[in-house]
């Protein structure tokens, strides 16, 4: 006779293993977000310069990462790097690289949108008091647009967290992969194994993403009030 399903989560080292899987997903997401944030801000600022070639290249980079589904991006890097360029990276590194490049691409669009929304008077005034281009970005454009960028960036972070669910496809031992193993190993004794394990992971993702979406919405509303006031 089958055991009560929820115990599958607590049997043996199952819970520790699940949380260990979550840690791997979190680590990949965290590194990718930090690298992608820095790269994205630089690329976004570059996209506001009046250099047509540079803008075209960066636009192409953005569109490439935006048009191709993330699953396909993962496979492209996972299979093509070792086979055609002789670069051997572990699955975790490949995933970090793909997520970082993807985050940077989307971030560059957020940063560009923020910067071009700063009123041109600000730029003119900055030039009038003799700021050079770098100072203009650092003291005038970025500080004024950062408020606008934050909600979209939080949403992007939450998208990256949700996308870590795809890690299983390139055999990273993430939380879902561990969950599958637990279900397979205990399937004989627990009829409702999938229900409890996948339900648990479902809630885990919800707990991670829901506060972020509340926070983003709160900031957006505040922004709206400020703009109308």
């Amino acid at each position, binding site marked *: 006779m089958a055991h009560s399903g929820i115990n599958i989560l607590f049997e043996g080292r199952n819970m520790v293993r699940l949380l260990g899987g979550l840690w791997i997903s979190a680590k990949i997401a965290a590194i990718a977000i930090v690298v992608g944030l820095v790269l994205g801000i630089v690329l976004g600022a570059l996209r506001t310069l009046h250099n047509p070639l540079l803008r075209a290249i960066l636009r192409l980079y953005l569109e490439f990462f935006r048009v191709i589904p993330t699953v396909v991006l993962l496979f492209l890097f996972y299979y093509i790097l070792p086979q055609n360029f002789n670069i051997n990276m572990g699955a975790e590194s490949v995933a970090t690289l793909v997520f970082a490049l993807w985050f940077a691409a989307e971030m560059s669009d957020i940063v560009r949108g923020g910067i071009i929304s700063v009123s041109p008077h600000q730029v003119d005034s900055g030039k009038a008091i003799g700021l050079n281009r770098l100072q203009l970005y650092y003291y005038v454009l970025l500080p004024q647009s950062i408020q606008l960028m934050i909600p979209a960036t939080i949403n992007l972070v939450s998208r990256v967290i949700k996308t870590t669910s*795809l890690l299983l496809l390139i055999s990273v031992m993430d939380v879902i992969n561990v969950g599958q193993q637990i279900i397979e190993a205990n399937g004989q004794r627990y009829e409702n194994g999938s229900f409890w394990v*996948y339900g648990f992971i479902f809630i885990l*993702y*919800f707990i991670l993403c829901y506060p972020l979406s509340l926070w983003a919405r709160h900031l957006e509303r505040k922004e709206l009030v400020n703009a109308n006031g």
Partner: protein
Amino acid sequence: MDWSIVQQGIPTYEKAFLLTLKLSFEGILGAIIVGLIVSFVRYFKVPGLQRILGAYVELSRNTPLLIQLFFIYYAFPEIGFKISAQASGIVGLIFLGGSYMAASFDGGLNGVPKIQVESGRAIGLTDWQLARYVVLPQGLSLSIPAIAANVIFLIKETSIFTVIAIPELTNTALDQIGMLYDTNEALFSLVVGYAIILIPLSILLTWLERRTRRGTFGN
């Protein structure tokens, strides 16, 4: 890259391509209907229902499609609902897409200037007439670019259907890699398959955004 292998694979990829389109179409249509319902319930502040649908929206937006699919395909049969892989895929896409579509419709409906609603009231329109002749025509056209962006997003999400072994584009490519080791050829066909669908749509989206901006009052 061996072009003859790519060429031999065309019929298989064509089938996968059509399946991707078919599932996307059904899922997106369902998502639009769910989104409209959710958005109307919120716009007209229907008591009770508003709360339930609010909870649905949060669950749908804050969890990944992959785990939603696993839950629908593997966990539901354990509690008595058995559905096929393809049906699970469509249900998953509707569950995910419904909340995104609702947000787009919300944006459109709330984008209709207040003065329009007040003017409608002033000339004595009923709630229904107000919705039918003032809010919906303007609100729905305002939401079109956001809907188009969601369509692109949801088509891309169908690539995740591979985890429940639906033979769409991604699954077909993975099969070819797994069985025949034609890695480059498979990935090439895969990217081309998505590009054929997504590049025209993304150009259409840019055009729609420009048109809608021009169509708003005062621009």
